[in-house]
């Protein structure tokens, strides 16, 4: 295990940034989100929860997939149909497709919390499943995750319900685990990628034992146990519960305050719905993909109708997807990591915890009856 004094963290950042793009929590106009480490960046490394999840680094809110270019070229076959007549040289219009470049430089996400690491695992199951999404894969291949223990978890956190250990990031599927304890940052590589990164920045560290880390782990565990939703029951959810939950009357009332905005979706580390759209450019189009939300009324709208026409259906879709459909497809793994961002951010204070609790309550009521 290595350590560096928290006062000297900028030396570590500089060392990492020397060879990689460094992405870490940065405060901008009062809000902390993951952003590039660049001059003047107001790094807020002790932020427990960034407003948005770091999924942007792998699955950006907007990315160009390819360009379709329209070119007008001379053609020798002037008699060919579709060629321009009478304009001297025979011309014809052609299309060519140019795929956007894939990410080919390493980057480091520093300070990512264990729940968000799990969130990336959730995305992996979607984007790396056949057929592989190469845009995502390139970023995954080049992304190095430095995950940090959550020293002071808050009441909106419920990651432990999903088996995530906020005290011990070394259990996460990341590359380096770090802790902040007694004025130092402790560093431990947990993957070959992590070891390579460690090697390149080793000079800024000194060796250390694990005593301080162990103490911090114990303290965090103590707090985690006291969190109000530490023991949130997921018994009613997972594989094979589709029919029972889908038709539940709980949905009939609970969705009502939902604004149909995309706040929960866009701050969520696991939501991965996207839209593909065209932008007309000078000589063709740019086809891009951008985040979309299943909560939006036009998400499934077609020319002749909408298969999820009411907000109830759309609301149900989001939670059924996270707690039932996704587990069905991924061996019981939930598409929620308990980061609690939706708990903090929902304009109407409606969130996945309330949904889970509402189902529990309705089951308890049925039990009584």
């Amino acid at each position: 295990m290595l350590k560096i004094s928290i006062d000297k963290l900028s030396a570590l950042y500089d060392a990492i940034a020397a060879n990689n793009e460094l992405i870490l929590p940065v405060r901008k106009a009062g809000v902390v989100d993951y952003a590039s480490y660049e001059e003047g960046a107001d790094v807020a490394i002790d932020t427990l929860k960034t407003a948005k999840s770091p999924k942007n680094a792998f699955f950006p809110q907007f990315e160009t997939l390819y360009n379709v270019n329209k070119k007008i070229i001379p053609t020798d076959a002037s008699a060919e149909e579709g060629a321009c007549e009478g304009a001297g040289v025979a011309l014809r219009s052609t299309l060519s497709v140019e795929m956007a470049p894939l990410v080919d430089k390493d980057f480091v996400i520093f300070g990512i919390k264990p729940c968000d690491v799990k969130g990336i695992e959730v995305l992996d199951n979607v984007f790396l499943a056949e057929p592989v999404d190469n845009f995502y894969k390139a970023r995954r291949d080049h992304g190095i995750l430095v995950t940090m223990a959550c020293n002071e978890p808050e009441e909106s956190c419920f990651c432990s319900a999903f088996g995530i250990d906020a005290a011990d990031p070394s259990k996460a599927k990341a590359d380096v685990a770090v802790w902040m304890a007694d004025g130092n940052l402790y560093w431990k590589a947990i993957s070959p990628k992590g070891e390579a990164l460690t090697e390149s920045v080793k000079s800024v560290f000194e060796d250390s034992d694990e005593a301080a880390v162990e103490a911090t782990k114990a303290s965090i565990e103590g707090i985690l146990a006291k969190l109000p939703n530490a023991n949130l029951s997921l018994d009613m959810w997972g594989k094979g519960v589709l029919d029972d939950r889908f038709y539940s009357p709980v949905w009939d009332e609970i969705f009502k305050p939902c604004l149909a905005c995309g706040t929960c979706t866009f701050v969520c580390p696991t939501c991965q719905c996207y839209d593909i759209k065209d932008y007309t450019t000078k000589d063709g189009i740019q086809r891009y993909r951008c985040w979309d939300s299943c909560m939006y009324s036009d998400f499934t709208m077609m020319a002749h109708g909408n298969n999820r026409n009411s907000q109830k259906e759309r609301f149900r879709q989001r939670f059924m997807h996270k707690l039932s459909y996704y587990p069905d497809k991924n061996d019981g793994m939930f598409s929620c990591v308990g980061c609690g961002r939706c708990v903090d951010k929902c304009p109407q204070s409606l969130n996945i915890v309330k949904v889970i609790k509402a189902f529990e309550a309705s089951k308890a009521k049925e039990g009584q009856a």
Partner: protein
Amino acid sequence: MSNVIDTLVPKVGVITGITDETPDVKTFKVNAPEGGKLFEHMPGQCAMVCVPGVSEGMFSITSSPTNKEFQEFSIKKCGSLTDTLHSLQVGDMITVRGPYGNNFPVDTVFKGKNLLFIAGGIGLAPLRSVINYCIDNRDDYGRIDILYGSRSADDLVKLKEIQEVWMNVPNVNVYLTIDREQEGWDGHVGFVPAYLEEIGFSTDCIGIVCGPPIMIKFVLQGLKKLGFTDDQIYSTLELRMKCAIGKCGRCNIGNKFVCKDGPVFRFDQINELPPEY
């Protein structure tokens, strides 16, 4: 530029032929710019066809894989993309990506079986791929019955092929019907489900149904009346799609993605899904 080809990135296709099928359906022949087919596919599979700048949409490939020269899409005019497609000319370029989705089990379950195809309107498009595949491999399948109906005689897609090819293949029976009486039409008149019961097919076959939702509903009832069970009836579904590879989150019905796990479903599978289609 990357050499990696992503499944989201399409190929350029050239329209090499356009046939007016009905007043609002055209069949487009598509080739690679250098000639030949853009890709190989199986009957029932779809592709994303796109007019850049307008939009992209999922269409079933209506030609049979046994056609080695080109692929065909029969497309009905019903929105901005299809409107634009209908205004294109031979020689114009579009982009195509695919094939996507599963296919009818022509090499497994269907093999050696009698097949009953029931289609309404543009619903013939996905089935035509299977029918021609079966006709081209005629010895692999038993009796083939085709029941096809449309609003009017003018709305019967691929009528020429039906009359000149299908009707002349041994052990293939074609039953055509139109919704309302029409001058010059001496065939059957009436809705498909009604005609189905009138003919009364035996249950020794696999039913393959495609058409408007309301027709499917009544055909299904009709088939059940005749003694068919859900697990011997197949259909294809259609929902809004963007990625076509089960990632964009749009076309799921419960835990199934129509684009990836479908579009071909057996009715007993469909019955297990929530009613969101």
